[in-house]
């Protein structure tokens, strides 16, 4: 029911699609900043620990410089996260009623155990530098970092239940799913792989941001001590994290074959069940839901069977067969996600991941030959490389959510049965525009502050006199690098 506007006829979209689009916009935007916050919090905690142990000023300047980026991304992540806590009820009231008994618990745990920890201790970290003892202050950043990771666990446990429901029964009186075992939900095989995959991916995101910004600093030849140390420290960590992300991702794929075979078949755009299946690397078809033919299709023989079944001629199930099986199991309907989306998001994610590993390897190689600070081509590549994890995070997320369609909870509840029945297109359009506008401003302002900090760089010398700016106003003009607090 929309009191504000008579629902305009938004021809190409019904309310369900609008609800999905609006939800997708807010979630995806939020998810730009979440992995950044997780990765950077861990990195800042690491830098501060090194400083605490060694007393080396460079680590202190690193802590403070990278801390600014962490705080900016946490700030935007936190404010956009407020929306997410309510979105399930707002857009998906039928879903909330159906799964609330199970899905609500990890969400509430996330608030109690993780959000409080993260937001309280990040406040203490920002404002507590001279108020807390160095040891306690160091603990505050670790608790912040721990809070971000814990939060990831709970929300991924909730999401994994949507991918692979466990530990529940269906109450046939209320027609709702009911929790039977919280340990089954928190120990779901799906989350046990999704969690390390996502958190390692977040570490790569933070690591590549550090590497990219450091490369920019090295290119400009300023504060090279901070940037060189940062790049050298972060490179091996990022490489390990990137390889781990890929390894867990592969394990996820194998598990998904069993749990959500349709998603994997759709990721490969494999329609017919094939033995010795080849892997499609690059395919383009006409822009339609189920393209009947492909304009381009480059394939590597047998590779899909090797990856999927670890044998040369292993059989890989195709979309058509799985669709027929699901029809038999769940009743008539179309159980195929939009294959163009799953195929390409999967490729972008995996492709970005492969590039990231190669980039980190190259960097390490240069580092061992002591040429990291001279190789300008690599520095340029590293700057561009900072965007790769973001691409991988977002496409990976879109893949996992859109690949589950038409289900919102796999095998239990369809997305078409999940929305809020009385939230009309007027409300959805208003909020879609509202969030887009608001988040657009956040992106522009946040991006501008981000770039300014990059340009400004870390404090060059810790002994620099920073007492008064010339011509300072009463109260003192804020120095350019005063970004940590207000």
């Amino acid at each position, binding site marked *: *029911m929309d*009191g*504000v506007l008579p629902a305009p006829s938004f021809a190409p979209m019904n309310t369900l699609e609008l609800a999905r689009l609006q939800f997708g916009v807010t979630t995806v935007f939020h998810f730009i900043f979440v992995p950044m916050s997780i990765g950077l919090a861990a990195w800042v905690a690491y830098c501060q620990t090194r400083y605490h142990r060694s007393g080396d*000023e460079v680590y*202190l300047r690193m802590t*403070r410089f990278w801390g600014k980026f962490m705080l900016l991304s946490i*700030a935007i992540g936190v*404010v956009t996260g*407020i929306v997410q*806590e309510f979105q*399930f*009820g707002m857009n998906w*009231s*039928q879903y*909330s*009623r159906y*799964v*609330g*008994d199970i*899905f*609500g*618990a990890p*969400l*509430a745990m*996330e*608030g*109690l155990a993780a*959000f*409080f920890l993260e*937001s*309280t201790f990040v*406040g203490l970290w920002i404002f*507590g*530098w*001279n*108020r*807390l003892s160095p040891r306690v202050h160091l603990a505050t950043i670790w608790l912040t970092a721990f809070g971000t990771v814990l939060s990831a666990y709970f929300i991924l446990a909730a999401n994994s239940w949507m991918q692979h429901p466990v530990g529940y029964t269906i109450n046939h009186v209320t027609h709702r799913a*009911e929790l039977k075992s919280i340990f089954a939900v928190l120990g779901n095989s799906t989350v046990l792989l999704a969690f390390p995959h996502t958190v390692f991916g977040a570490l790569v995101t933070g690591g590549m941001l550090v590497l990219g910004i450091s490369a920019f600093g090295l290119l400009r030849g300023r504060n090279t001590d901070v940037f060189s140390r940062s790049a050298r420290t972060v490179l091996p960590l990022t490489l390990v994290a990137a390889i781990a992300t890929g390894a867990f991702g592969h394990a996820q794929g194998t598990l998904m074959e069993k749990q959500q075979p349709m998603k994997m078949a759709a990721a490969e755009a494999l329609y017919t069940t094939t033995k010795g299946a080849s892997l499609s690397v690059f395919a383009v078809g006409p822009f339609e839901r189920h393209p009947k033919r492909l304009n381009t299709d480059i394939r590597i023989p047998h590779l899909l069977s090797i990856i999927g079944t670890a044998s040369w001629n292993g059989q890989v199930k195709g979309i058509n067969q799985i669709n027929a099986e699901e029809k038999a199991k769940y009743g008539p309907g179309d159980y195929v996600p939009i294959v163009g989306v799953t195929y390409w998001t999967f490729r972008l994610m995996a492709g970005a991941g492969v590039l990231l590993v190669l980039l980190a390897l190259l960097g390490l190689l240069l580092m061992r030959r002591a040429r990291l600070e001279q190789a300008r081509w690599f520095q340029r590549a590293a700057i561009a490389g900072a965007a790769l994890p973001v691409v991988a995070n977002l496409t990976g997320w879109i893949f996992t959510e859109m690949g589950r369609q038409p289900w919102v909870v796999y095998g239990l509840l369809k997305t078409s049965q999940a929305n*809020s*029945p009385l939230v009309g297109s007027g*409300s959805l359009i*208003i*909020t879609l525009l*509202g969030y887009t506008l608001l988040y657009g401003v956040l992106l522009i*302002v946040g991006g501008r*502050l981000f770039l300014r900090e990059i340009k400004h760089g870390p404090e060059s010398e810790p*002994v620099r006199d920073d*007492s*008064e700016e010339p011509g300072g*106003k*009463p*109260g*003192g*003009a*804020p*120095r350019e*690098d005063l970004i*940590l*607090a*207000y």
Partner: protein
Amino acid sequence: MHDPNFLQTLWFALIGVLWIGYFVLEGFDFGVGMLIRALGRDETDKRMIIHTIGPVWDGNEVWLLTAGGATFAAFPGWYASLFSGFYLALFLILAALIVRGVSFEFWGKEDSPRWRATWEWTAVVGSLLAALLWGVGWADIVHGVPMNAAHNVTASLWDLLHPYALLGGLTTLSLFLAHGAIFLSLRTRGEIVARARAVALGASVASVVLMGAFLLWTALDQNSGGVKVSQQVVAAGAAGLAAAVPLLLRRARDGWAFGLSAGAIALLFASLFVGLFPNALPASSAHANDLTLVAASSTHYTQTVMTVVAVIFVPIVLLYQGWTYWVFRHRLGRDDFEGTPTPIAVLSSLGREGASAAAHERPLPPPAEPPATA
């Protein structure tokens, strides 16, 4: 209809406590947000004002998130009906919260008067709108909203803005304004204290009148039948505490005034929760459609699990959040912000010897009043 069982009652109470915690804590930072421009005469004042809530506002907001999450876990039906039913109103609140949150973050990050003025205004408007709309929303919940048999709210945004609800909104607005002004008078020193106290006095007098009227209307309005004595006792307590606040302020007993103001906010919402019980969301259209706690509830098992989690984590959270307030208990003065000793400057000077002397908040001569009970 059967009554809520023990766990359902417990979780209703706990969710009430989370909302009360949210309003008592975020209430003052709404007030501080609204007062940035009114009480801040120049940039130094404004920086000081923002700094009084700097370390804590984000943590305060988590009370809201946790209230939302706890509602989802313990009463999914309530979570679903409430947030889909109050769709646009909640959107406005969320937008206001986002805007004010980033305002504090962005304000000091560029050195231009226009930049700062922009984020001051967004902080003022965001804080004001949120403070108003929370009261409107809770008045609507207590009053009931038109709802169908499937517990889907059929009200539009305009249906939520009737006079009773608006009175509720003005009540929370004035309460939070006073609460924030008292907080400022406690957390600052110098001439700003007197100005903050004057605003607090005016706002608290207004809040007594508005809250009195709102609670009276609530007592008459309860269309769920007979007057609940317990609710009226709590409401009278809220009114009594609120009435004492201006008296204390006139005697410059800011610490006591803050404690009582917090108590008034807490009891106001407690009275609303008592009035709501055993409903989660009454239907103003037909009582048969009332969403009861029993109908909205999750299973006994889920509530048991959540009880265990809450018993473990709530005390820990209270402990470390309380500790944060203890760490940042000192008053701020203009001299803390003159020159450039903002926390960042302190940060920037960390490596230098003797830099710690430039700490931005220095311990003060003992305050005249007892410390805040926040």
